[in-house]
């Protein structure tokens, strides 16, 4: 990070303004993370709160610090956790790819329409956010289940004799995951695609490139930032997703969010849950750091122009 260089370029008064987001991050990301990290080194206890404290002040002013590494050791030694992390990453990756494949043409189409219609289309993408996320998942449950609207309709018109198994399996899981996260892919893609200079495509066409070649040599590379931003916005929350797998996923869906829930609520083991969360955050920091490096590099690139 090049915060100092960034600050130098800015006028002194702006430092205060810039510090607000950092303060925000410190207060609502870093501090909670350290609280979780602290709990992950504690031991389960039957008390309020249900874990031991790390520090004990003994008589004579001796400060005792007890760090319990057992939780992390357990996560590493039991391959169940590795399998779960892997399966979460896999689910998130597949969701991201599907969102990209679906979202890119949508974003492209919106960016290419005339401005008047563009706003209406953008509005349609954002409109679902006016309803609670949870209600939208419930709506899918109503559509997909065995006695749901889709099955009732298909049975009613006689297209099928037995209800289709649309619910509580991988199909419903990915359908709803992609549905829920698609806008997060479309919006950043759109904001990059809309800025693209249309004359570049005209030039390519003049020089004899067909639409496919023009797309792959001009549009796609120019929208790379949008692809990365959109993918991160989908991938990162999808890894930790709990509600969708729980409500519409199948019994064999293995996600880290559920394991965390089990540790916290079923085993009542807050330290173990905290350790699982810590490892998840560390796993997610890798893509975030990647994104951040990419953005910084871009910022620098623009500064040198």
């Amino acid at each position, binding site marked *: 990070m090049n915060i100092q260089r960034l600050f130098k370029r800015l006028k002194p008064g702006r430092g205060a303004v810039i510090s607000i987001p950092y303060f925000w991050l410190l207060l609502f990301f870093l501090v909670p993370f350290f609280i979780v990290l602290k709990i992950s080194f504690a031991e389960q206890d039957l008390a309020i709160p249900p874990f031991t404290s790390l520090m004990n002040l003994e008589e004579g002013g001796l400060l005792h610090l007890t760090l319990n590494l057992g939780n992390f050791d357990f996560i590493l030694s039991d391959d*169940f956790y590795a399998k779960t992390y892997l399966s979460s990453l896999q689910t998130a990756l597949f969701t991201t790819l599907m969102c990209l494949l679906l979202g890119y043409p949508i974003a492209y189409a919106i960016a290419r329409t005339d401005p008047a219609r563009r706003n209406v289309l953008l509005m349609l993408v954002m409109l679902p956010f006016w309803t609670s996320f*949870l209600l939208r998942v419930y709506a899918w449950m109503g559509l997909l289940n*065995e006695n749901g609207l889709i099955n009732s309709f298909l049975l009613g018109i006689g297209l099928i004799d037995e209800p289709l198994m649309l619910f509580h399996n991988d199909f419903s899981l990915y359908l709803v995951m992609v549905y829920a996260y698609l806008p997060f892919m479309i919006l950043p893609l759109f904001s990059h695609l809309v800025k693209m200079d249309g004359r570049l495509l005209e030039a390519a066409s003049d020089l004899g490139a067909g639409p496919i070649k023009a797309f792959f040599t001009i549009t796609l590379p120019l929208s790379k930032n949008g692809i990365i931003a959109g993918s991160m916005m989908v991938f990162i929350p999808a890894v930790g997703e709990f509600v969708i797998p729980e409500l519409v996923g199948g019994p064999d869906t293995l996600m880290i969010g559920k394991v965390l829930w089990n540790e916290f609520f079923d085993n009542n*083991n807050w330290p173990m849950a905290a350790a699982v969360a810590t490892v998840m955050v560390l796993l997610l920091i890798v893509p975030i750091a990647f994104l951040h490096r990419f953005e910084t590099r871009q910022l620098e690139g623009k500064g040198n122009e």
Partner: protein
Amino acid sequence: MKRFARTLLLGAVSAAYAGSAVAASNELNIYNWSDYIAESTIPGFQKATGVKVRYDVYDSNEILQAKMLTGKSGYDIVVPSNTFLAKQIQANLYLPLDKSKLPNYKDLDPELMKLMTKFDPGNKFAVPYFWGINTIGINTDRATKALGGKLPANQWDMLFKPEHAAKLKSCGVSMLDSPAEVFPIVLHYMGKDPASKSEADYRAAADLLKSIRPHVTRFSSSGYINELSGGSLCLVLGYGGDINIARTRAVEVKSGVKVQALVPKEGVGIWIDSMVIPKDAKNADNAYKFINYSLDAKVAAANANAVTYAPGSLPARKFIDKANLANPSIFPSKEVMAKSFVMLPMDPKIQRLTTRLWQEFKTRK
């Protein structure tokens, strides 16, 4: 009972309320299971005492426990189930009862109170609200047909013997999504101690579960009610009261589905939900008033008729609907009770093992 879905919806609402308990003598904050009281009870209590009641609901013991262990819940009465209550008592969360403030305490079923000493030694903290059984329910016509016209002599075999379960698979088999509820039943079925402390017993139970895994089509702790009454399930392992609700619903909508809560003679799992007062309750006196009010025979009977579970009060039985009283899944016979067991808490090591085995069982990994 675990109704996770609704918890999410209600969680935000109750969280907003929970924090705002104010020290005032005419208030009472109750946190109870969803759909677990007659509509007339709270208005009746408010009228009788002038106490203003704030009534919030939850749908899983886990949610309640997390809130209690965080501390300062703001509630004056909560209603945990036996296994959870046992641990919460050990964690010193609740107020020992001053029974002189509960004149109706004498009406409580002495046999039930004796069962309760297993998790509340000396009956120091808890007043039973409702109790019931974990058992199997069937879609009578479809299950009988799938099994060739006759249920097996040991009705548990329907679920736990792969050859029977395989026949029922095509019409839907559902199981409670909770290792804490299912493992004791499997252990009991295998003739082992349902509260076993031996890891090997739980591994053996998991092996039995794995043998029927291909035939379990659904894991659900509340959704099965609708699916059973709608006809898309023909065998469920669930809560007796919920299976009765499914039966009532099927009758109401005239779906033609006949639902039956079975009470296998080999015994069932018994749970008891009890009212307790958190240590930091600000309106403990009002909590006593409410507990005493809900022990009143007529009030208890009204609640029981509404939720189709058995109350702790004996005189209440005079006012309970005859059909409910005669239903063995609400009031099991003495013979069944003698072979049944109260579910007890697992120590952390066993709990971890069962959660882990359950995940393996469920995800087939």
